[in-house]
């Protein structure tokens, strides 16, 4: 079982957000960059599938600038056997349509795969378009928000999240899956300091976009201005000191001061 897992570098949740610097390549400080959270669920799924089958290889694929090296190496530290970074510093391609074309071309270049796994959404753009678009560009069947997988012969049966329940579908391999944040792969494994040290010494091959044979095309829909929503004036009032009786008393006191009556519905 050969699995490609697509991982993205995004701005860290704890780093300050700046509308002018929304991509890792815009930042100077590596600590501002993290692995897109949901991609760890996809890595977990890939590793578990290979472990359960007792054979196979997991390759992490990332389109990003050298700021993304950290992310590719984290994938190795988690247990991915190989990784590829596609260099994206000079051209800085970020549009999902173009990224999907590049990732599909990279998969073609790798050639042999049974499964392509994606995180369910990216933290920055969060369009959730990548898995469906790549599956279409490669003409492969697709299931998104997958919580569970089972393999039989050339097929994979998946449980996918739907509104109010679960749908089971069967796909012929090779197939594209996006992995849910809930379900069997909800808890991505931690990696140890030792593994991170070891991974940091691995040399990750860097591919150039020009070598992938992607035709350059202007996306039919483009991104324009970035806006901040109006800032909230008050911060959350936190009560963390005292026993339950005191904490509740403080909350009710604060509500009362604002003219809010939690007892109005009895």
């Amino acid at each position, binding site marked *: 079982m050969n699995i490609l897992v697509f991982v993205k570098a995004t*701005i860290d949740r704890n780093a300050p*957000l700046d*509308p002018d610097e*929304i991509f890792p390549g815009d930042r100077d400080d590596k600590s501002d960059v993290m692995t897109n959270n949901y991609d760890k669920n996809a890595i977990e799924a890939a590793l578990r599938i290979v472990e359960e089958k007792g054979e196979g290889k997991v390759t992490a694929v990332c389109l990003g600038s050298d700021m993304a090296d950290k992310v590719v190496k984290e994938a190795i530290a988690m247990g991915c056997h190989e990784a590829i970074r596609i260099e994206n510093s000079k051209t800085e391609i970020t549009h*999902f*349509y173009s990224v*999907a074309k590049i990732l599909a071309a990279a998969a073609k270049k790798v050639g042999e795969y049974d499964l392509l796994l994606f995180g369910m959404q990216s*933290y*920055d*753009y*969060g*369009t*959730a*378009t990548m898995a*469906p*678009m790549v599956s*279409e*560009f490669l003409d492969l*069947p*697709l*299931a*998104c*928000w997958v919580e569970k997988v089972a393999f039989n012969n050339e097929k994979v*049966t998946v449980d996918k999240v*739907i*509104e*109010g329940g679960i*749908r089971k*579908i*069967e*796909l*012929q391999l090779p197939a594209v899956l996006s992995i849910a*944040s809930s379900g069997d792969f909800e808890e991505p494994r931690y990696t140890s300091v030792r593994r991170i040290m070891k991974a940091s010494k691995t040399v990750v091959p860097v591919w150039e976009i020009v070598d992938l044979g992607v035709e350059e095309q202007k996306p*039919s*829909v*483009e*991104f*324009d*201005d*970035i*806006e*901040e*929503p109006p800032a909230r004036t*008050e911060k*959350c*009032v*936190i*009560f*963390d000191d005292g026993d*339950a*009786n005191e*904490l*509740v008393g403080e*909350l009710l006191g604060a*509500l009362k001061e604002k003219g*809010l009556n*939690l*007892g*109005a519905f*009895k």
Partner: protein
Amino acid sequence: MAKILVILENAKGKIVGLTKECLTVVQNLAREIDAEVEGVILGHEISNLAQEAGKFGVNKVFKVDDAQFRGINILYHTRTIEALIKEINPSLVIAGASLYGQELVPRLAARFDKAMFASVKSLTLEGDEYDGIHPLFEEKLFVSMEGPTDGLTFATVLGGNNPEAEPDDRLSVEVVDYSPVIQDSDKRESFVEETIAKVSVDITKAKLLISGGRGVGSAEKFSAITEAAKALGGEVGASRAAVDAGWVAYDHEIGQTGKTVTPDFYIACGISGAIQHLVGMRNSKTIIVVNTDEEAPIIELAHYAIIGDLHEILPELMKQI
């Protein structure tokens, strides 16, 4: 005349609410660009739904009513809608950004080699371009997307940002039977089965919601939430994790795959605040969090937070109110 094609999502014998929200966006656009609104509905035994769509301003509905569409197969849907698009030449193909829409529409757009207005809160006309607003960083920033109105465009509309279109019984609709288009390669996907919970309780009108998540701990302990809700005159809400665990019925789920609520008070107990939950409750007037973890992301959104065990705090709350 320009044409807008709306994908009419249906589940459990109903047109889904998000499609009706999408129809509000479509009606406004259609008025501005003077467009014809057409719809496509796919499923099995859905004649009444095709008729119903007319009440929401759809002039013509293409109905694909076939046993092969009893369970959803995205490849079948993609192929059939692709054929329809080629036949009727719409300038915009639009659907709700439900889990179905988010899987189907990007695939369809890619088939026509197009980018799309992916998961937009709004889609309006700015001069001779479409303008769509898409959230970044879990709604901490927003970006506008722009694209020409001539040619073919695809879009999905996020839930919870537009009111559902109101039905108008005076409107009539032309229903056209459309045959499924399926190729052998589409059989690489096959539907096996699905479970969808019934909904009988409506929590969306409640003024006070007390919601429980995985932090509640067990089915037995969930009574802490139900009892507090009862004592304070509120309704019970829940995260998907609590629903999945079987502690509470799906009727109570709040978020992307559940309800969108805007009560006067929302009390989130043992809920961490995944974005899929937040999108369903973020517009509540006063948000109160009870969580043992002072770093739970939901606190960023809250007005008040008690750092503590919900099983100690809720009984105390019942005592003091």
